[in-house]
């Protein structure tokens, strides 16, 4: 097994992990504030991708503006889901909203199947994105480079937002103590809507990265990566921004190294392997690698 080969699988893992990281951040910020695991989050990714496909094939809009539209639509969908599926149930407890999120996930999948048919569809980005570049023994596609750049930009931007802006500080306050935040005059709904908007917009971008790599999309494509991103958020310590990113990269790299380095007789079971990683991590770090024990909630 050559170093070149291991590096190529490592890059596959980092690329996949970057997508998980971006989606995991969305899980984490919503969970941080609401203690809600939003299982529909992965399907927002799918919506974003279908919107892109719709605008790419039916209009002559340039790619960047198609991406902007798709992100905006996903943000709106995410915010509407919060408003109509979660907010009315918020006083009913975490379990009720959790069940609701599963229902929303199924609903979105079925809606997409009705509108776009359950069949796979081709999703081609311009050749520019699939071009391979050689850096020594490291081979990267344009898409890989953009994906890594996106994660770095996301981490920097979110750090700035969370640390330096008013809404970011409010978000941290809410995730620590919702009632005390209300006593400061922070309107939790504004912060929650902001969290859903950020998470959904990021999910649309993650969807683009997945679809661009896979070249095909289908109405169920977001669910499994969404679930793995949730594992990533838990592995990293749910509620923590850096934990979500680290967890995403850990899960992505672990999955790809498993698929790439293990004997081919077991590699088809990589989905199961991700859950094994989750279980093992939780056995040693019950709060995730970066997680601290739950703060008080009153």
């Amino acid at each position, binding site marked *: 097994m050559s170093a070149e080969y291991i590096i190529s699988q490592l890059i596959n893992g980092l690329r996949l992990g970057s997508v998980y990281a971006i989606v995991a951040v969305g899980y984490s910020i919503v969970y941080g504030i609401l203690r809600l695991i939003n299982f529909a989050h992965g399907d927002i990714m799918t919506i974003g991708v279908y919107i892109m496909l719709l605008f790419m094939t039916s209009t002559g809009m340039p790619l960047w503006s198609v991406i902007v539209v798709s992100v905006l639509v996903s943000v709106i969908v995410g915010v509407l889901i919060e408003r109509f599926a979660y907010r009315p149930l918020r006083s009913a407890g975490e379990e009720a909203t959790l069940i609701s999120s599963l229902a929303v996930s199924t609903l979105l999948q079925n809606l997409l199947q009705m509108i776009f048919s359950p069949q796979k569809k081709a999703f081609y980005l311009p050749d520019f994105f699939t071009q391979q570049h050689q850096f020594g023994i490291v081979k990267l596609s344009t898409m890989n480079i953009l994906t890594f750049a996106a994660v770095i930009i996301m981490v920097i931007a979110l750090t700035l937002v969370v640390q330096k802006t*008013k809404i970011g*500080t*409010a978000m*941290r*306050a809410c995730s*620590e*103590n919702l*009632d*005390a*935040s*209300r*006593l*400061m*005059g*922070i*309107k*939790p709904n504004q912060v929650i809507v902001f969290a859903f908007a950020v998470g959904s917009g990021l999910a649309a971008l993650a969807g683009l990265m997945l679809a661009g790599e896979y070249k095909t999309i289908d109405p169920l494509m977001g669910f499994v990566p969404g679930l793995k991103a949730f594992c990533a958020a838990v592995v990293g310590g749910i509620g923590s921004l850096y934990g979500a990113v680290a967890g995403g990269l850990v899960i992505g790299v672990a999955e790809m190294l498993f698929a790439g380095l293990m004997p081919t007789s077991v590699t088809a079971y990589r989905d199961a392997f991700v859950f094994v990683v989750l279980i093992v991590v939780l056995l040693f770090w019950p709060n995730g690698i970066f997680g601290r024990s739950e*703060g*008080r909630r*009153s």
Partner: protein
Amino acid sequence: MMMLKVDNLVVRYGGITAVDGVSLELEEHETVALIGANGAGKTTTLHTISGLLKAAGGKIFFQDEEITKVPAENLVARGVVQVPEGRQVFAKLTVEENLRLGAYLQKNKQVIRANHEKVMTLFPILQERRRQAAGTLSGGEQQMLAIGRALMSNPKLLLLDEPSMGLSPLMTQQVFDVLLELKKQGMTILLVEQNAYEALTISDRAYIMETGNITLEGRSSELIHDPRVKDAYLGGDL
């Protein structure tokens, strides 16, 4: 002007009536104590006034406007600010960030700066600890921060919930000194306390609460000598 008027307030948790027909009043610049044992319904009353809990009956007025159904986050702008029980500072945020959050709704930078200065003068220790995470402060320092945070919003009515809870006698004394200072500056304060002696010492008037009802009210200087109060609440302290 009547600052706060609570009229026949009823609050229920599920089937349990925690507050059962409480009425109380605060004049402007007045410091009023609400005293009672654990579970008497003091904190529930306070949370309902500040909008964290919903009233099942009765009405609450602030400066003659009804605020019964106004949620907590909207009351702050009107000037009703609560310093919650157990401090509840944002432990992962710095002292400075906690204070900034106190001024969350304040848009005028000059007002913020002035309030900030006022708080720092009142609590010089917070100046030293500015960049520290609030969770690393001692209990007394956290209480200072909680009060300072509330002051950042320019409150007209300060609701304090058990400010002495869990503090050493020395720290308790310091906290009450600060309250006295605020009172002197003309702040209107509703103080919920189990520490009846300290509360009666600094307040103008007081209400005694038992199992969801006000059982006694009067001038603090008189209540402190009232045998019923002495027996029930001041026994060990005197």
